[in-house]
């Protein structure tokens, strides 16, 4: 599945950047996030426990960075394993841009769900993944401080002067959370 989106966060880019590095804020954005661990400069692991509908499962994930291109962004890829439930893996191209005093976060995700998740729950894969991404960024945006702006974001984005790159932690957790939410696709 492929999905893309963008969120306009009413906070300066530096604030967003710091928030993305703040485990406490990330834990607020991701229900069930139990731990995040940096294993190298470009690799991380995390654990998430989610309960959705009748489904409840623990996921362990690993994420690595590639195509580092400060300040424009990078590609991250990762995989989350959910035991008997299967796996999810994917990559995301991430951009963080200034927009006046706000920050625009754009993402293009390619994700693959495998094993029992894909086999039994195909009816809800797409909508669940979209919901997950939106939930995560909605909560994250709110947590960063300023009220979320609901209107659509203009397509034209002002040129970003400097971005050192987005913290991978958000993507570790984001990917794992997507994996975990995909679990709920099974229901009869």
């Amino acid at each position, binding site marked *: 599945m492929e999905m893309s989106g963008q969120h306009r966060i009413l906070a300066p880019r530096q604030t967003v950047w710091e928030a993305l590095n703040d485990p406490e804020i990330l834990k607020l954005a991701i229900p069930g996030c139990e731990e995040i661990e940096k294993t190298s400069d470009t690799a991380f692991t995390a654990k998430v426990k989610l309960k959705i509908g009748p489904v*409840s499962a623990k996921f362990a994930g690993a994420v690595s960075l590639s195509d580092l291109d400060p300040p424009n962004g990078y590609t991250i890829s990762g995989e989350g394993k959910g*035991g008997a439930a299967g796996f999810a893996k994917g990559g995301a191209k991430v951009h963080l841009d200034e927009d006046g005093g706000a920050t625009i976060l754009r993402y293009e995700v390619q994700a693959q769900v495998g094993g029992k998740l894909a086999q039994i729950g195909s009816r809800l894969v*797409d909508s*669940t993944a*979209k919901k997950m991404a939106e939930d995560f960024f909605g909560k994250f945006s709110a947590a960063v401080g300023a009220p979320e702006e609901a209107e659509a974001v203009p397509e034209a984005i002002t040129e970003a002067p400097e971005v050192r790159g987005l913290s991978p932690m958000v993507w570790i957790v984001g990917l794992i959370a997507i994996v975990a939410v995909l679990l709920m696709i099974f229901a*009869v």
Partner: protein
Amino acid sequence: MYDFNYHRPKSIDEALSALSSASDGKLMGGGQTLLPTLKQRLASPSDVVDLSAISELSGITEQGGAIVIGAGTCHAEVAGNASVQSKIPALAALAEGIGDPQVRNRGTIGGSIANNDPAADYPAALVGLGATVKTNMREVAADDFFTGMFETALADDEIVTAVSFPVPEKAGYAKFPNPASRYAIVGVMASKGPAGVRVAVTGAGQGGVFRVSAMETALAGHFSAEALTGVSVPADDLNADLHASAEYRAHLVGVMAKRAVDAAG
């Protein structure tokens, strides 16, 4: 399935006590969603609290202008109940179309709405008829009860005890089922009554059941299928899967809404 401790309380208090003493307890109505999930090892609750032996959760009564259905009432009982059939035939018909006869003999209204599957039928009935959900703690309007895909306003220690349906002047339900699972690809409940004119759609929305205000406005003028001509829902936020794209679902919402209004008579 992973093993668990099984409880079969006789009262709501006993159920709450079993739930609170469990490290990771799960309430079970008819089990028609939970058990298949457990069989696939997609959940591992420490305890399963079976609500089926709680007598206060069962039964269908007429109270004033409403039909009150106990949370533990199975779909077959709702479908076959004389009061429901005479006062809200659309609700009886909806219950008769859930799953298959064996699922209807076990699945319960309380379990269905607490699960809030985005393709389940009952959420459309509750929202489309302006029902009120009664729990061990409070009463919640259906509009506030369903908060998102598989999400409800229920607290962790809250148990649905009954659903109260105001008797409408007219109501109809039309469903386009998934041919394999028989879940709703699109299901529309349209009604006119004490809760106003309502059009509720299940199966199509990513966040579960939703109301279509444009259709409600059109029907408020004249409650007829013709009034819906030209009124459509955007495909943007609708579900897409193997069986139906978002665009097709959007189209079906229009078709099923007209059929629901026709069925309302």
